[in-house]
């Protein structure tokens, strides 16, 4: 079966079952010890599925004008519209079913958050690995830049970027990446600094492997664990920041109604007592952010057994 059995046929007693599990099975078992985290994970998966299959789970395509009737605008939650459809969460100013608009909004918010997170992860990882691998002056310059950037609040950097660049989906992703790459770079660097001194890196070097091969083939895979944690938290932060910027009118264009923009659209109706147009997209946003954060927290706890005490 395994190498151990062949080498020692007389066989000492088998190790306990827990240790026989593969890395992932053990990780999953540890993760499942917290019921809250399991609920959060289920909620994340449901949100993701709803966002991906939005056209199939919503009763109405909220952006197909043929479906909309202005007579249906600003219906209260639970009211029945002109087509006989029940709007469980009410409708907005244009007569859109709010539930459908939220699911479509989730799609946009998650999309922007994940794309920004992945790009920031890539940029941050390359920069962080470079800093740790080369050390010396390169490291000093990169880390000064990271420190400098982290001393400014995220919202201020995004505000500066958007004020200079202007509006648009690509611009907001650039702004989010500009805010977040530093967190990834810092995390990768500190993990890579530890890994760099390990023997397998020396071994790889003795084999005459190229620098890039050592960096990306050997060093990077061993720095992934802390990155996963930062990545989850940063996707949640990206979603929250995008929503805030969209609410301020600096984020997504009107043609891409993310959750933040839905909340902003409801703002004008808040004072007349039509609370639901802003409230429900906000609750969807809140559930998304809290679920992702709880999953990230749990992954961190499982990967860092020291925190158990």
């Amino acid at each position: 079966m395994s190498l151990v059995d062949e080498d020692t046929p007389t066989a000492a007693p088998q190790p306990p079952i827990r240790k026989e599990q593969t890395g992932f099975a053990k990780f999953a078992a540890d993760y499942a010890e917290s019921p809250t985290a399991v609920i959060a994970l289920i909620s994340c998966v449901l949100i993701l599925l709803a966002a991906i299959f939005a056209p199939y789970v919503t009763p109405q395509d909220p952006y197909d004008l043929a479906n909309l009737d202005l007579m249906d605008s600003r219906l209260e939650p639970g009211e029945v519209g002109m087509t006989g459809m029940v709007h469980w969460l009410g409708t907005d100013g244009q007569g859109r079913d709010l539930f459908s608009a939220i699911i479509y909004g989730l799609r946009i918010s998650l999309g922007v958050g994940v794309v920004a997170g992945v790009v920031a992860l890539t940029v941050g990882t390359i920069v962080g690995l470079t800093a740790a691998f080369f050390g010396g002056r390169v490291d000093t310059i990169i880390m000064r830049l990271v420190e400098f950037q982290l001393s400014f609040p995220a919202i201020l950097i995004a505000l500066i970027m958007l004020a200079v660049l202007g509006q648009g989906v690509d611009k907001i992703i650039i702004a989010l990446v500009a805010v977040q790459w530093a967190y990834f770079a810092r995390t990768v660097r500190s993990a890579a600094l530890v890994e760099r001194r390990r023997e397998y890196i020396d071994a790889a070097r003795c084999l005459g492997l190229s620098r890039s091969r050592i960096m990306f083939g050997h060093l990077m895979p061993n720095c992934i664990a802390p990155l996963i944690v930062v990545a989850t938290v940063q996707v949640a932060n990206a979603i929250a920041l995008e929503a805030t910027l969209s609410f301020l009118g600096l984020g997504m264009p009107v043609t891409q109604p993310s959750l933040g923009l839905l909340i902003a659209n409801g703002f004008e109706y808040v004072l007349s007592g039509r609370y639901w147009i802003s409230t429900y997209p906000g609750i969807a946003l809140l559930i998304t952010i809290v679920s992702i954060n709880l999953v990230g927290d749990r992954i961190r706890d499982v990967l860092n057994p020291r925190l158990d005490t």
Partner: protein
Amino acid sequence: MTLFLVRRLIQGVLIIAAMSLIVFLGVYAIGNPVEILINPDATPEIKQQAIEKLGLDKPVHEQYGYFLVRALQGDLGNSFIYDEPALKLILAAMPATLELAIASLVLAMVFGIPLGMVAGYWPDAWFSKLIMSGSILGFSLPSFWVGLMLIVLFAVHWGLLPSGGRGETVPILGIEVSFLTWDGLKHLFLPALNLALFKIALVIRLTRAGMRETLQQDYIKFAYAKGLSVRRVVFVHAFRNILIPIVTVLGLELGTVIAFAVVTETIFSWPGMGKLIIDSINLLDRPIIVAYLMLTVLMFVVINLLVDITYSFIDPRVRLTEMDE
């Protein structure tokens, strides 16, 4: 210490220079500077005059020089909308923002410290767990949405508090303030609470951690041994010692609070710098945008400098490692 200060000052100046270059290139090089800096409604003669006055017919590096010289003289251009110096408009809006920021830090302490002390004194009680879960929520809640919900509940549903504006103000040393009139206080409360939410969560965590640590100390045991009442030990002996780090951290958070005031001011129509910059971005009032960005960067460089100095006093190791480099 002097060497440390000088190095930090030089770094600060470099950062401001770099930032001015970024803003300059962003505004001058990406767009057409004539469109950006001169009112599009102006007549051709006025436009020509302005181009000459601003040196827009010169090469880019000379223009950057002009921009720097004017910026150093405090001239960051005139607002298109109000036709007044941009810097003057921003400075006029600053007291409102500062009042809001300070009020929110005060609220953070007023709510955060008692809750944190309770959670630290009885760490295993159900209400302490409730407080700690609440503080996690405080970190996760999108603050702009909470602001809206505060308006929905307090202003629209219950009609207790106004939903926006500054209310009645009183001048102190020529600066209008809201917190001295009852009407002004009513207007101040919701936005300050909204802005404070994140900091309340932070203060709860700091206080709880400080409380748990302090109660283990020998001088607390000694105070009990002297026969002092629990109330005196907790509120005099322990409280004073946990207060120091909290006040320090909150002071350092002032910059973040001012940055986040952008959101709160927009929701509650609070007439501060944040609302001014958002309005200016929406109205494309570019001189104000440039002036705001330069001023905020300057402010942050100063705040970060103060933070470094404070830390070097609290923890001399910071200063010493800097020296070694």
